[in-house]
C-alpha cells in the first residue's frame, strides 16, 4: 500500500497518521500532535542525525503544520536542507520552505544565495526546484538577485525548465511589473516555443498581459487564431488529448484570449469567426471537458463583435446546457445566458421555464447564479416579481455575506425601476427589516432623501401621499420587535419630519411612539439621538403652528435622563430640545422651518451677522481683533501649533528638515480665509470629525501651498500639500468605513450552517404547481411572453386600432414614469433593450416585430455583403494570404504551408460566403416560425389564451 512511490516513510510517521486518524475529538488530536511536536523538537536539533532521518522529520513537520500547529522551530532546518547536495534532500527542503515561509520572512535572506546557485545547476531538476521556490519566496527587493538566472533559463534545452522559467517571470511581473517590464517580449517569444507545453503555459502570462493592455497585442490575433486552428485540427501530440478532445485546456485559454482581443474590434473578430464556428461544430457535448470548451466559445462569442451565425450556435449550446440534467451544466448555461442576453436579449424567452426551474432548484449555487441572471435582465416590467423573489430568498438565508449582496441588489433595482412610490417604500421596508444591519448606511440616507424630495418635480400631492404612506407604514412597523438600527434611524427621521404633516396623527401620538423607540432601544445611542431630534422637530412644528405644547410625562422623564446622559451628543440634543420648547413661535419658525430638509444651508463663514455686535463692542472700548499672522507676540506659539497640526496629519517619519518658522507662518495663514484658519488650530481634534470643518482644513493648506514660497520649499511643499489633503479626507469617511468593516467582520463569523434549512425551504417551493410557474414565467419574461402568441396569428394582420390607442397610452404613462425617475437619478442604459427602455417594455405587443425587423435588416445586409464577398473572393484571397504570411507564424513550421493552403483557398472562402448567406436567410425565417408555433402550443397548454393577457403584467402598466 502506498509504497510504490518509493519514498521512504518510517513506522513512526505511519503510527502518527494512524493515531490522528483514530482520534475521536479535536482535543485528542491536538494532544497527539503536540506530543509529536515535542519529539520533533528534541530530535531535530540533534547535530548528527542522518540525512534521510532529517528528511522524514521535515516531512512530519510539514504535516504537523498542515494540521494547524506551529512548526516554526523547524524552519531553519528546512532552510538548511536546501543547501544539501543530495537532490532528494534538497527537493524536500525546497518543498518545506515553500510551504513554511512567505516572501517577507526573515529566513529568506539565507535562501536567496542557494537559489541563485541552484538556478545555475547542471541538473535540471535542481533548477526546477529552485524555480519553484522563486515563485513563492522572492519578493520585489530580491527579484534583481535572481532575474538574470531566470532569464537565462528561458532558453534551457529542457522544456520543463523553460516552462517554469516563463511562469517564474510571470510571477515577477505580478509582483512588480516595473522590474521585468523590459523582459515582457520574452512571453511572445515563448509563444513560438517548439514544445506545446511551454506554449500552453505561456498563454497564462499573455492572458494577463492582454487583460491589462489589449491594444499592444492586437498583432497576435492571427497567431492565436492559427494556433487554435492547429489545436482543433489535432496537430498537437496525442499526449495532450483529453477525453478525445485535442488539448482542451489550451483551447480554453486561447478562447479566453481571443475574447479579450476581439472585444469591440470588428476587424479582429472577423478573423476568429471561422475557427470559433469550427469548434462549435466539432465539440463533443457529451463530455464535461467538451462542454467546458463550448462554454468558453459562448463567452468568446458574446464578447467579440457579434456574428449572427455564431450567436445562433451559442444559443443552441446554451439551450442544450439548460436542458441537461447536470447541475453543473445548468449553472454554466445560466451563466452563459447572462452573457449572451447582453447582445441578443430575445434568447432569454425560449429558456424562461428552464430559468424558473433553476430558481427553484435545491442547489444553492445554481439558485444564486440564477438570481444574478435575473438581476441582469430586470426591467420595469418585471422588477416587482424579481425583487420580491430576491427578498424572499434573502429572508431565507443566513449567509450574511450573500445577504448583504442581495440586499444591495434589491435596493439598486428598486431605485432604478420602481413602478410606484408605494411599492418602493414597501420594498425598502422589507429590505431594511430583514437585512437592515447589513446594508450600507448610504442606502438609508438615499431613502430619506427620496422621501423628502419625492419622485415628482412639481407634483406636491404625490409627494405628500408618498410621505403619509411612509409614515403610516412606519408606525405600523414600529410594533414589531427588534428592528435594525439603520431602519430605526430612518423611521425616526421620517416621523420627525412628516409624522404630523398630514394631520392624521396627533403630535402626542407621534411623540409617544418616538419615546417608545428611544426606550425600547436604550442601548443604541444613534437611534436615541435620532429620536430626540425627531421629538424636537415635532414640537417645533407644533409651536410654529401656534399650538400649545404639553410634553408627555414619559417624554419628560426621557429628557431628564438624556440631560444627564454620558453621551455628550445626547446631552446636547436634549438641551437644545429644552431650549426650543421655551421659545416663541416666531423664533422657532426661523430656527426650525418645517419641511426644509432639502433646502440648502448656506454657511456664513465670515460670521457677517455679528458685525453689528462687534461694532457696538468696539465703540464701547473693546480691543479690535488682530489676525493671528499680525500678532507679533504670539508667533512662536501659533507656529508650534501649525507644526503640531502637520505632525498629526502625517503619520510617517519626516525626512526633510523643518523649515524656518517665519516662512510657514506667512504661508499658512493668508488673511483671506480668516475665519476658517482661526477655527482649525483651536478645536482641531473635535472638528476633524465633522464634515464642514474638514473641507476647510485642506483648502486652507492648499492655499498655503500656492503662495509665494515656491522657490525655496519646492519638494517640501509638494509633499506637504498632499499629506495634509489625504488625512483630512480620510478622517471624514473613516467613521462610516469603520462601521462597515465591523459589520463585515461579524458577517464572517456566522456564515455557515444555514444551507440545510434553506434547501428544505426550496424543496418545498419545488413542489409548486406548474400553472403558478407559468405565471411567474410570464411575469418575469413579461414582454416576451406576449410576443409568443402574436406570430401565430400571422405577420401581416393589421393591428386593431384599440391596440394602438392602448399603446400610445402606455407609452405616455411610461414616459411619465421615466420623467419622474429622471428627477432623482440618472437611469443607466438598460442592458436588455435596444432602444428607449421604458417605452419598449411598456408596449410589448408591438415591439417584437420591430426587434425582428431590426434583426433581419443587418442580416440581409450581411448576406448581401457576403455575396459580394464571394464574387470578389478571388480578389480578396490574396489579401488573406498576405495576412497569414505576415503573422509571426513560425510556431509549427512544418505545418505552416498546410494551414496556409487550407485557410486561404479561394474555393473554401467562396463556399463559406455562399453558405452563410443562405443559412442566415433561413435562420431568420425558419426557426422563428417553428418557434412561434411551438410557443403557441405551449401557451395554449398553459391555459393562457392570447385574448386574456396575464393580469399581473398589465395591472401596473395601465392601472
Amino acid at each position, binding site marked *: 500500500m502506498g509504497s510504490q512511490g518509493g*519514498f521512504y516513510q518510517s513506522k513512526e510517521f505511519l503510527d502518527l497518521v494512524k493515531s490522528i486518524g483514530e482520534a475521536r475529538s479535536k482535543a485528542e488530536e491536538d494532544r497527539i500532535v503536540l506530543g509529536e511536536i515535542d519529539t520533533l523538537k528534541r530530535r531535530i536539533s540533534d547535530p548528527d542525525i542522518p540525512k534521510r532521518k532529517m528528511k522524514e522529520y521535515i516531512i512530519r513537520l510539514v504535516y504537523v503544520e498542515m494540521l494547524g500547529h506551529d512548526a516554526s522551530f523547524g524552519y531553519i532546518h528546512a532552510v538548511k536542507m536546501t543547501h544539501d547536495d543530495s537532490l532528494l534532500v534538497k527537493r524536500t527542503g525546497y518543498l518545506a520552505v515553500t510551504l513554511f515561509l512567505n516572501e517577507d520572512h526573515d529566513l529568506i535572506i539565507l535562501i536567496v544565495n542557494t537559489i541563485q546557485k541552484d538556478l545555475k545547476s547542471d541538473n535540471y531538476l535542481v533548477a526546477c526546484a529552485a524555480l519553484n521556490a522563486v515563485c513563492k519566496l522572492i519578493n520585489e527587493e530580491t527579484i534583481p538577485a535572481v532575474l538574470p538566472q531566470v532569464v537565462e533559463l528561458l532558453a534551457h534545452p529542457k522544456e520543463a525548465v523553460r*516552462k517554469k522559467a516563463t511562469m517564474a517571470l510571470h510571477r515577477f511581473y505580478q509582483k512588480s511589473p516595473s522590474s521585468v517590464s523590459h523582459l515582457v517580449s520574452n512571453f511572445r517569444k515563448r509563444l513560438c516555443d517548439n514544445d506545446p507545453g511551454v506554449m500552453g503555459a505561456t498563454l497564462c502570462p499573455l492572458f494577463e498581459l492582454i487583460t491589462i493592455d489589449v491594444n499592444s497585442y492586437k498583432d497576435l490575433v492571427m497567431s492565436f487564431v492559427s494556433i487554435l486552428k492547429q489545436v482543433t485540427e489535432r496537430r498537437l501530440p496525442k499526449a495532450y488529448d*483529453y477525453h478525445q478532445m485535442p488539448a482542451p485546456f489550451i483551447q480554453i485559454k486561447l478562447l479566453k484570449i481571443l475574447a479579450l482581443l476581439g472585444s469591440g474590434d470588428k476587424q479582429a473578430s472577423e478573423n476568429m469567426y471561422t475557427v470559433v464556428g469550427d469548434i462549435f461544430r466539432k465539440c463533443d457535448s457529451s463530455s464535461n471537458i467538451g462542454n*467546458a470548451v463550448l462554454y468558453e466559445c459562448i463567452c468568446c462569442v458574446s464578447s467579440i463583435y457579434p456574428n449572427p451565425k455564431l450567436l445562433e450556435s451559442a444559443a443552441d449550446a446554451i439551450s442544450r446546457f439548460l436542458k441537461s440534467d447536470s447541475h*453543473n451544466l445548468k449553472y454554466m448555461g445560466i451563466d452563459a445566458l447572462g452573457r449572451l442576453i447582453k447582445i441578443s436579449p430575445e434568447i432569454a424567452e425560449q429558456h424562461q421555464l428552464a430559468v424558473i426551474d433553476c430558481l427553484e432548484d435545491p442547489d444553492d449555487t445554481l439558485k444564486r447564479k440564477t438570481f444574478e441572471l435575473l438581476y441582469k435582465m430586470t426591467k420595469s416590467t418585471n422588477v416587482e416579481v424579481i425583487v420580491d423573489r430576491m427578498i424572499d430568498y434573502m429572508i431565507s438565508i443566513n449567509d450574511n455575506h450573500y445577504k448583504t449582496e442581495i440586499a444591495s441588489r434589491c435596493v439598486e433595482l428598486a431605485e432604478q425601476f420602481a413602478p410606484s412610490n408605494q411599492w418602493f417604500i414597501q420594498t425598502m421596508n422589507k429590505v431594511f427589516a430583514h437585512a437592515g444591519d447589513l446594508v450600507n448606511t448610504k442606502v438609508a440616507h438615499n431613502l430619506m432623501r427620496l422621501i423628502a424630495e419625492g419622485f415628482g418635480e412639481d407634483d406636491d400631492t404625490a409627494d405628500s401621499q408618498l410621505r403619509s404612506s411612509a409614515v403610516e407604514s412606519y408606525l405600523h412597523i414600529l410594533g414589531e420587535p427588534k428592528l435594525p438600527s439603520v431602519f430605526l434611524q430612518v423611521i425616526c427621521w421620517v416621523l420627525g419630519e412628516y409624522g404630523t404633516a398630514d394631520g392624521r396623527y396627533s403630535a402626542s401620538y407621534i411623540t409617544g411612539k418616538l419615546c417608545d423607540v428611544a426606550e425600547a432601544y436604550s442601548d443604541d445611542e444613534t437611534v436615541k439621538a435620532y429620536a430626540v431630534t425627531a421629538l424636537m422637530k415635532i414640537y417645533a412644528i407644533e409651536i410654529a403652528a401656534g399650538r400649545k405644547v404639553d410634553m408627555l410625562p414619559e417624554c419628560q422623564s426621557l429628557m431628564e435622563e438624556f440631560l444627564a446622559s454620558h453621551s455628550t451628543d445626547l446631552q446636547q440634543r436634549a438641551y437644545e430640545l429644552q431650549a426650543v420648547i421655551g421659545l416663541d413661535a416666531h423664533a422657532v419658525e426661523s430656527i426650525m422651518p418645517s419641511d426644509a430638509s432639502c433646502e440648502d444651508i448656506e454657511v456664513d463663514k465670515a460670521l457677517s451677522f455679528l458685525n453689528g455686535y462687534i461694532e457696538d463692542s468696539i465703540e464701547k472700548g473693546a480691543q479690535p481683533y488682530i489676525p493671528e499672522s499680525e500678532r507679533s507676540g504670539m508667533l512662536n506659539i501659533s507656529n508650534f501649533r501649525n507644526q503640531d497640526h502637520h505632525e498629526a496629519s502625517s503619520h510617517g517619519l519626516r525626512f526633510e528638515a523643518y523649515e524656518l518658522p517665519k516662512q510657514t507662518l506667512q504661508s499658512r495663514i493668508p488673511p483671506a480665509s480668516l475665519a476658517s484658519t482661526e477655527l482649525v488650530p483651536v478645536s482641531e481634534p473635535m472638528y476633524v470629525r465633522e464634515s464642514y470643518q474638514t473641507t476647510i482644513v485642506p483648502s486652507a493648506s492648499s492655499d498655503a501651498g500656492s503662495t509665494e514660497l515656491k522657490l525655496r520649499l519646492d519638494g517640501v511643499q509638494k509633499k506637504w500639500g498632499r499629506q495634509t489633503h489625504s488625512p483630512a479626507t480620510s478622517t471624514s469617511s473613516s467613521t462610516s468605513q469603520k462601521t462597515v468593516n465591523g459589520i463585515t467582520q461579524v458577517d464572517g463569523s456566522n456564515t455557515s450552517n444555514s444551507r440545510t434549512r434553506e434547501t428544505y425551504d426550496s424543496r418545498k417551493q419545488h413542489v409548486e404547481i406548474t400553472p403558478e410557474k407559468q405565471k411567474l414565467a410570464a411575469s418575469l419574461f413579461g414582454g416576451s411572453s406576449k410576443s409568443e402568441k402574436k406570430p401565430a396569428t400571422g405577420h401581416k394582420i393589421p393591428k386593431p386600432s384599440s391596440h394602438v390607442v392602448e399603446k400610445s397610452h402606455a407609452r405616455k404613462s411610461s414616459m411619465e414614469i421615466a420623467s419622474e425617475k429622471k428627477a432623482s437619478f440618472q437611469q443607466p442604459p438598460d442592458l436588455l433593450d435596444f432602444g428607449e427602455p421604458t417605452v419598449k417594455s411598456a408596449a410589448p405587443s408591438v415591439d417584437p416585430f420591430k426587434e425582428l425587423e431590426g434583426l433581419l435588416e443587418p442580416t440581409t445586409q450581411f448576406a448581401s455583403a457576403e455575396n459580394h464577398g464571394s464574387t470578389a473572393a478571388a480578389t480578396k484571397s490574396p489579401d488573406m494570404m498576405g495576412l497569414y504570411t505576415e503573422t509571426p507564424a513560425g510556431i509549427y513550421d512544418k505545418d505552416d504551408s498546410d494551414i496556409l493552403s487550407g485557410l486561404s483557398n479561394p474555393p473554401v472562402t467562396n463556399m463559406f460566403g455562399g453558405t452563410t448567406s443562405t443559412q442566415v436567410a433561413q435562420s431568420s425565417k425558419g426557426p422563428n416560425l417553428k418557434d412561434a408555433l411551438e410557443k403557441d402550443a405551449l401557451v395554449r397548454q398553459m391555459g393562457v389564451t392570447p385574448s386574456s393577457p396575464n393580469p399581473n403584467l398589465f395591472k401596473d402598466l395601465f392601472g
Partner: protein
Amino acid sequence: MIKAVMVMNTQGKTRLAKFYEYLPVEKQQELIRGVFAVLCSRAENVSNFIDAESIFGPDSRLVYKHFATLYFVFVFDSSENELAVLDLIQVFVETLDRCFKNVCELDVVFNYSKVHTILDEMIFGGQVVETSSSEIMKAVEEISKLEAASNAITLIPKSASGWRSR
C-alpha cells in the same frame, strides 16, 4: 489564477493544503474549516461549484469533487473556467491513480511529498502549466529516478558527492 488546492477527507481532516498566496497557518486552518462546513452541507446531485466569496473574499470560486472518502477542492478566480477546473481535478486524480495504482486516501497521506511533486508539475505559482496526465507522469517518474540515484550517491562519503555536484 488558482488560489488554493485542498484535499480533505469526509471527516474534515486535511490531507493536503497548498495556498498559492501566502497565508498564516491560522488563516489557512480557518479557510479549510470554512470550506469543509460548506462542503458537508451540500446535498448529493447538486453542482460541483460553490460561490466562495464569503470565505475567500471577492472574485473567488470554488470547485470540488468528491472521490470515495476524499474531497478535492480547487479555489480560483474568474480567469479560469469552472468546468475546466473540474476536469483539472480529474487530471490530478487520474495522475494520482496512475502513480499509486488505485489511489486511496492513505496513499495521499503517506506519500505526502510525492503528491506535492505531482501538484507542482501541474500548477506552478498559481497557474496551470501542465494538463496532460502522461506528461506529468513522465516528469514525476524522472524525478523519482534521479532522486533515487542521488540518494545512492549520498551513501558515498560526503566530500565526494559534494565535489561531484559542483
